[in-house]
């Protein structure tokens, strides 16, 4: 389902001396089935923006269109909208509450008023997507480790089978293995299901690895927008917005300045590895100095 915003603005506590313009005239279009990264330094309005996509926040002015229809005017209830647009919050593990992990993941589907059998099926499907061990289902969520809790919370949203999945920094504070697991699982889900995914992240590496396009926010406005390649090409502009390109890109750019013949559009370690190998094969006498 396409998401579109038209002149979307949001002001926190309007009319008070401490009012704050968090979104300023945002015009965006996110195509159905795409995998979009949303980046921007802290306080730039990312979390505020995504909460408009499932109606948790109402625009101060402007519109949010989902599949061409204004979500704040449609006859569909907010509840139905939220099942369509699944939103995983920052640190979602703090929302767990039920007696068992299973019951907690089933909370959303239960609110959808599905049958027992269907709920069960969805719970199992969801834990499969986040690689959560089945044996943990009967445990209390408060007995799990931080990483496991995070997975359980994400599963709670996946169990809704949303058409649009929004994740607000899903890998913040996780170990490298846990991070890679969650990212590759989401990537797999996106491919298998063909759903739209919006990933908010502070990690340029994560964005380069899984996203197709990138939206860059700055002070409540959209500063840049385009494919991963187009955006990360502008390393100077990104630095001005207090962001950066992935570390591997920084390394490659440095090597290029040293005279190594490498392409300037390397954003992942896998791609870099390939190119380094090519370089080594081409000039065997330089072997020791590359890589």
């Amino acid at each position, binding site marked *: 389902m396409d998401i579109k915003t038209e002149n979307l603005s949001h002001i*926190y*506590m309007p*009319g*008070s*001396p*401490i009012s704050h313009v968090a979104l300023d005239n945002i015009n965006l279009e996110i195509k159905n089935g795409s995998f979009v990264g949303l980046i921007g330094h802290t306080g730039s309005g990312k979390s505020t923006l995504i*909460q408009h996509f*499932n109606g*948790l926040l109402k625009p101060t002015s402007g519109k949010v269109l989902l599949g061409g229809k204004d979500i704040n005017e449609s006859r569909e209830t*907010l*509840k139905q909208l*939220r*099942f369509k647009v*699944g*939103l*995983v*919050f920052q640190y*979602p593990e*703090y*929302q*767990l*509450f*039920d007696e068992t992990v299973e019951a907690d993941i089933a*909370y*959303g589907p239960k*609110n*959808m008023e599905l049958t027992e059998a269907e709920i069960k099926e969805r719970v199992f499907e969801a834990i499969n997507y986040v690689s959560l061990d089945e044996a943990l289902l009967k445990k209390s969520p*408060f007995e799990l480790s931080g990483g496991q809790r995070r997975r359980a919370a994400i599963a*709670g*949203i996946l169990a*809704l089978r949303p058409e649009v999945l929004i994740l607000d920094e899903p890998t913040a504070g996780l170990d490298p293995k846990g991070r890679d697991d969650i990212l590759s699982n989401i990537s797999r889900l996106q491919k298998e299901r063909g759903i739209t995914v919006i990933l908010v992240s502070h990690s340029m590496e994560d964005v380069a690895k899984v996203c197709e396009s990138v939206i860059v926010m700055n002070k409540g406005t959209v500063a840049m927008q385009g494919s991963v390649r187009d955006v990360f090409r502008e390393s100077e502009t990104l630095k001005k917005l207090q962001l950066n390109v992935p570390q591997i890109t920084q390394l490659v750019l440095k090597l290029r300045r040293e005279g190594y013949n490498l392409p300037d559009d390397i954003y992942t370690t896998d791609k870099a590895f390939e190119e380094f190998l090519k370089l080594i094969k081409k000039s065997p006498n330089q072997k020791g100095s590359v890589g």
Partner: protein
Amino acid sequence: MITDITLGQYIPGNSILHRLDPRTKILLTFAFIAVVFITENIIGYVLIGFLLALLIKMSGIPFKFILKSLKPIYFFVIFTALLNLFMTGGKYIVSFGIFHISREGIILAATMALRLIFLVAGTSLLTYTTSPIVLTDGIEALLKPLEKIKFPAHELAMMMTIALRFIPTIIEETDKIMKAQSARGADFDTGGLIKKAKAMIPLLIPLFISSFRRADELALAMECRGYHGGEGRTKLKELRFKKLDLTAFLVFTLLAALCIFVGKFNLFYI
């Protein structure tokens, strides 16, 4: 939204009211409350209204904002006013059916409504212009003499500081968890009482757990920094009465005397 609650919030600024010593403001707020209760007639209330308007003007806080912050008590004010309007005996000037309105009723209704509004607006001016930390500092200083009779002034002030400090945090947290559960289809607004109470479980449990966790972390952090109660503890910013405070006391005393004089003794026979 829950984060829109503005009553009792601190609004940073640099007005005369902001710069006054917290003890001055606390004492004068109590004096103000006393004046409001002593005043009995409408002219007195008009005077107090002027005084309050002057104070708000001096604080630099927009009138609109003060009016908005009174929203939670509007219902209460109207209810009280109506009750007084219809329930007061005397010489009826308007009657329809079982309802009678007397001159006394109108005056009582107006004074009651004004009394409530003045009380809330006046006291909220204190919290608007005083940061919670400074406010509790002031309370602690005022209660200090009571420590001689084993009154735990420091502990009380510390508890208040912590409570005040965490109110916004907890409101924010409530908002966050509410949103997170709404994203999973929770519905906090519709349904009967039992359904509504049940819908609160997914909100309250995470809220309790995080409050306990936070209390635990805070206690640990305080101990790590050597906190051991109020004994021998010094302050970074000592409270000091300035000339401004003296002026404030004098001006306020004069105005209060005027209000009481006019408000208590029925000069104009209204």
